[in-house]
């Protein structure tokens, strides 16, 4: 089964081994989970080397126009994971566009009752900016300046 790319059963990023190397890396902080829309967003955050926690890939953003509601995303899996792993902080790193902001607010509403802190990247990016486009410096600053939701 080697060389077959599949989804990590914990964080849903793309991986060849399950769980992925980020999920199994003991040096990484298991108390912090960074929630991203797509697996490719992990690479953008990893490029900064400023983040040492783990990830959760939603598989998209809430967009009723495209027929995508919370049920079509891995929201339930995130909530189950929070119940199981009891992390200290969830960082929501969705893009600062209309869909990214609405998704962040929605997740915050779902997670807050669990008592886990929810934060959002403090984007120095212009509105409508993408994680993809952000340079390392901007993204590092966004990570460091994250704010409570």
């Amino acid at each position, binding site marked *: 089964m080697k060389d077959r790319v599949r989804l990590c059963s914990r964080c849903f990023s793309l991986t060849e081994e399950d769980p992925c190397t980020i999920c199994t890396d003991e040096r990484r902080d298991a108390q912090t989970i960074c929630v991203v829309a797509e697996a490719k967003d992990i690479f953008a955050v990893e490029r900064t080397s400023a983040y040492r926690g783990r990830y959760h890939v939603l598989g998209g953003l809430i967009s*009723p*126009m495209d*027929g995508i509601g*919370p049920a079509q995303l891995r929201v339930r899996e995130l909530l189950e994971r929070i119940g199981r792993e009891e992390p200290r902080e969830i960082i929501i790193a969705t893009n600062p*566009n*209309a*869909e990214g*902001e609405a998704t962040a607010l929605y997740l915050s*509403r779902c997670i807050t009752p669990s008592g886990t802190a929810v934060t959002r990247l403090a984007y120095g990016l212009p509105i*409508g900016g993408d994680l993809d486009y952000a340079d390392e410096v901007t993204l590092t600053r966004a990570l460091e300046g994250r704010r409570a939701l």
Partner: protein
Amino acid sequence: MLLELLALTDVRNYAELEFTPVRGLNLLIGDNAQGKSNLLEAMAMLGTGRSFRTTHDRDIIRADAGAATISGRARSRAGTLQLACSIARGPGNVRKRYTVNGGPVRYARYLGRAQVVTFAPRDLDVIVGPPSRRRAFLNAALSQERPAYYPALASYTRTVEQKRALLRAPEPVDSDLLAIYDERLVRSGAELMSGRRSYVAVLSSEAERAYAAWASDGPLEVRYAPNVDLGPEGDADPAEAFELRLRAARPLERSGRRVLAGPHRDDVTIRLAGRDLSIFGSQGQQRSAVLALKLAEYRVSAANAGESPLLLLDDVLSELDSLRQSAFLAGIADVEQAFVTATTAPPEIAAAATYRVVAAELNRIG
């Protein structure tokens, strides 16, 4: 604002053009379909990134070319600006790119660098057309005036579409998500409402004065007519009022599956001597009113920016009688630079330079 250089590559019927206009009134004379309006459209795009003639950016790329590029050098109070806007054919939609002084910027950061006021025949729709034309007029002006306006408009418009889709989806409506959309609408919608309210207030007094200068059948009254009731004096806090309105409208929005409340349904009422101009006005009165509105837009822009915007008059001056022509020209006497197109030279105009446009060639003739 002074446009010192305009360079076009594959824009409409222009393969390649370099134009160095002069200060003051630049008059462009030519028959139809020779390229004079295309030149004005390109200048408007350089300032606003948008065409005033089409919503299909694809139309701006010259036939058989892959991309259109409009660039220019302008001098403003802020110094010399190097602007460029390019449109490239893509697999689906076109790709647009903007640069300021050589560096790429997003549209929201490009807007408003070089302010432009355009006046074209279709602007009569602001008076006689549907409310969407009046909202488009406000949006275009305010996007240049207020840096926070365009991002709020983009966010608001998109959120309305998402909310509409949520209400119309076959599955039961997620109340949490609906509440989040409403919260987001209040935030961006309040910026739209306060922007429109204050803009129309200054615009109306300028327009009233302009109209009174050449006609005695006024007064011309221009009033913001928000969908969300802002109180008898119109001075209520937009966010609070919008929140209340959304709460009241929610049952009807859910049962009717429609987005009923908010500034996407705003209008502007335009009255002459107390009567709705779009219904009761004669064609002459309607033309005079749009002229007054455009003059007001110019004056408000000049006052806010502390310098006159680039003024683009596409085929409108020659249609006015000499009284209105002189009144309009007197109103823009302080303009730093304007571009006027016509098939024949309007009699009242004292141009600083006159050009003849034939088959995408520009020749100075006076």
